[in-house]
Each structure stands twice: as C-alpha cells, then as structure tokens.
C-alpha cells in the first residue's frame, strides 16, 4: 500500500495573528511554524496502517517554499519514508489541490490522507478538490480509518452523528480526532530523517482562482461587565433586556 500524506505548514496554535501594515499579508516575523495539527492524525494513522500491514510506504507531500523543510523533516522523523516538496507558494486551495492530484496520479498512490482543514486558511476543501480531480471518493472528515486489503472502512462525522463508509483504493480521506494518538519524533527518528529522500519538484497546472485582497482582525471587545456572584440571577436579566440574546 502506498500512502501519500499531505501536510501544510501553519503558524503554531498559540500565535497571535498580525498582518503587515497594509493588511495585505500575514506577518510571519517571529512566528513559529508547525505541521498542521490535523495533518498529524493523517501522518500517524498512515504509519500505523503501514506497520500493521507489515509492508508499504508513507510519502509526505507539502506544497510550499524552502522554509517548510524543517517541518517536512519532522514528518520524516515521526516515521514517513520519503518526502516531496512542490516548490511554490501555496496561493489557494485549488492551486494546492492541483499539485497534490498531479503527484498522486504520477506516483499511483493508493491512499491519500490529509487533515480535516488547514488551521491558517480553514478552507476544508483541498480533499474534496483532489478527489474530484482524480475521480475517486473523498471521505471528509474521518474520525476512524481501518484497512482490510484494498478496502477501507471509515467513520465520517456528520452534523449530529456519523456515517460508516466503505471505499476501495484509491481514495482520499481527511483525518481528525479521535483517529489516533499523534506521534512525536524520537531521537532515532530525528537521526534517520536527515538522510531520508526529500525530492523538490516544480509546480504544475493553472493559477489560483481566488486572491486575498485584505486581512482584518475581529473587532475588539468593549470590556467585560462583571456581575456579583451573590447576585448571579442579575446576569440573566441583562442577557434578556440589555444583550437581548435570550
């Protein structure tokens, strides 16, 4: 089984988001980038399934510029076998999906795993696009993934419940908790990651279909109005008469 795990390179979850003075770009200064937290589920599950089968390969793929390589190496340290970086700024989901689809097709990958969504841009769409481009099913977001031969059984989260879905390879799935316990690199992994192959390839396909014009931060809160705990019922009156939300 050939697994392709797609990882995006995102600001650490504790990052205070700021923009350049013209509000046209995200201000990367001083920001620590990490593997998108959802993608860690995809990566770990691929490694687990490969181990359980006793054969197969796990390739990680990132569409990004050279500054994403530390996180690609981290994915190799966690246990991926090799990596591909498409050397281009990931300008929108469609552009990224085209790159992933081209590589998935060329490498004849059986299982293409992603995270539920990229926490920087929150598109929740690359997986569906890639499935459509390849003409294969996408299961998103998946909470559980088991394989038996070429057939996968997945639990897909829906509003208010879940669906049990069964698909044959090749397919795309996007992963989220509680699929597995994401692994962290160990010392041996870090050592071997240095020499694992990381191939850099140029971008293909058409340009992006969306362009960010401007960013904005949410409006600041006015400040909190404190109500005495002894008089907690007063809060309910305020919620009805002042805030008008109940």
């Amino acid at each position, binding site marked *: 089984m050939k697994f392709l795990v797609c990882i995006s390179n995102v600001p650490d*979850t504790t990052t205070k988001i700021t923009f350049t003075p013209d509000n046209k770009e995200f201000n990367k200064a001083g920001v620590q980038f990490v593997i998108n937290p*959802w993608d860690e589920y995809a990566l770990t599950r691929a490694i687990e399934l490969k181990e359980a089968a006793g054969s197969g390969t796990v390739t990680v793929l990132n569409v990004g510029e050279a500054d994403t390589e530390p996180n690609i190496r981290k994915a190799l340290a966690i246990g991926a076998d090799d990596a591909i970086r498409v050397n281009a700024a990931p300008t929108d989901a469609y552009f990224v999906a085209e790159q992933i689809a081209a590589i998935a097709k060329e490498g004849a990958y059986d299982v293409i795993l992603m995270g539920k969504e990229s926490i*920087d841009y929150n598109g929740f769409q690359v997986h569906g696009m890639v499935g459509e481009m390849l003409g294969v*099913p996408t299961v998103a977001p998946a909470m559980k993934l088991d394989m038996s031969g070429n057939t996968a059984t997945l639990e897909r989260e829906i509003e208010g*419940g879940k669906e049990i879905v069964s698909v044959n390879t090749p397919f795309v799935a996007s992963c989220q908790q509680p699929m597995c316990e994401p692994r962290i690199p160990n010392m041996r992994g870090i050592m071997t990651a240095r020499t694992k192959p990381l191939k850099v390839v140029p971008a293909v396909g058409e340009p992006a279909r969306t362009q960010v014009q401007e960013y904005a931060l949410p409006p600041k*809160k*006015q400040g909190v109005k*404190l109500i005495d705990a002894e008089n907690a019922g007063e809060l309910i009156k305020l919620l009805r008469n002042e805030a008008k939300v109940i």
Partner: protein
Amino acid sequence: MSVLVVVECADGEVKKSSLEVASYGAQVAAQLGTTATAIAVGEANEANLVKLGEQGITKVLYDAEPRLKDFVNNAYTKLIATAAEQEQAKVIVLANSNIGAAVGSRLSVRLKASLATNVVELPKTDGGQFVVKRGAFSGKAFSDVVLSGDRKIIAVKKNSTEAQHDAGKTAEVASFSAQLSDADFADAPKQVVMQDQAGGVLLPEAERVVSGGRGMKGPENWGLIEDLAKALGAATACSKPVSDVDWRPHHEHVGQTGITVSPNLYIACGISGAIQHLAGVNSSKVIVVINKDPEAPFFKAADYGIVGDVFDVLPKLTAAVKALN
C-alpha cells in the same frame, strides 16, 4: 444567469443554516439583478419548501429519488451540478457544513468555479469584482477574497448571517431529475448513526451554547451544564482537555482543533480561555465567562463575567432562567 442555493433538509424540515443560506442567496441574486432558485437535498417536505419564498427564493427544485435522503457525495454533486447547468447558475450558495463543504469542493472542480468557504457577509460586487469576507486563521482573523472565476461557489458560515422572513411569500416547487444511476450511489454510507439527542440542540446549529472546562472537575457534574442549557434551549460544548479525557464526547470540543461556533450567546464555565479555545468561540456575539479566578484570560474576551464558583453560580443561573420563562 441565476443564483442557485443548496438547501439541506432533515426529517422534512429545512435546516436553520439553510434558511440563512437561502436568504443570503436571494440577496446576492438581488444584487446581481436576477432571481434565486433552490435545490433541496435530504428528506424534504413540500410544504416547507414552498415556504422558502419567505427567504426570497422563487423556485425550488426537488428530486424525489429516495436514495438522496442520506448524504452521498457523488450523487449530491451530480444533482447540484445538473441543476446549476439547467439554471445557468453563475453563483452557487451552500452552507459551510460537512455536506456543503464536501459537495462545494467537488463542484468547484467540476464547474471550474472559484470557491470560498467560511463566508460571513454578503459579497461586495461593485467595480466589476466579486469579493467575499471569510473567516481565516481559525477565527483569529478575516480575509477579503476576490473570486476571479466566471462561476463562484460560496459556503456561508452558520449563524453569521440572518435569515430574512417575508411572511406569506411562497416559492414554486418544481420536480427535477438529475437521472442518477446506481454508479452515482457507489459511495453511499453503509450505515448512519445519529447521536441520541434527547431533545437537545445540535452544537453546530445552536444559537446558544453552554460550555464547560476542566473547572467542572468531572463528568458527574455535567448535570449543572445540561440543566442551564436545557433552560436556555442551548447546546452543550466543552474545552479540549475535557473531551481528551472522555468526560464529554469529542464532537463537543470547540476551539482551534475542534469545531468553531458562532452562537449569539456562549457561556463558558470553568474554562481558562487559552488562545486555542478562544479561536473557536470568539465570533460568538455575546460571551459570558464564569470562573473563580479573576485573572483568567477568558475575562478579556468576555462581554459579561461572574467571578465565582461554578458549583454555586450555575444553579442560580438555571433558577433565574426558569423564573423568567
């Protein structure tokens, strides 16, 4: 040219988020000088589809194929693509739900459209450009995005726009068939398991949410959260550590790595207000924080706060709501 709106139904009812989407689509149609047609998916009831006129929809297409009752990605995509071609839709509007996003992303490739998800406002269409505002960086920011394709698909974030109600207006319901075949249902779910809701409110659709954190001390105390939620008609939610240790199911986990909610009212009980938690809730219209620590960071993001013990405060709030009703 028209606007096509995808309306999700369940148990005969149009979902609340789809009423918002219908209203959004009708307003976009008005901006563009055209009309809005809806395509209904899921288990629909004709009388409720007729009522979509109140949101400004003129015509509703409905394919009564029974296998469309449950979500099937390929079948839904083909159904909506066929409707979009028939209606020559330039703009397709759907909910930013698990169904809407799954279908929207496939449609964007099939119809060569620009797609924006997580959209929070009506588009700006002056000056020949089509610009939408969407949430980014997990609720920490917004971005204005130009949709440069000839066709556009917009997935509207739940509870971020208000559904208009023009009482008494009706829509014409037209039967419609996308000529779906067995092959289109190949990825149909084997089984659908719904949570036991027992009169509860679904978190992603909720207008009010009562949420508990580690300060609740243990799952045995969740009755306090549930009582207040019930009195308010609210859904229940929790912080990540709470679902990590299985005090609550993980689908209640809100935040940067959980679900993002934007209810009218979010009540946080015994939650410290870590940046990853705030990211998932800070677009709530009114935030109430109950925490015994006056220095808890959540107070900085709150509109109302009570510095106190949840075990003392929650029963008082529940009683006060009951007294009000």
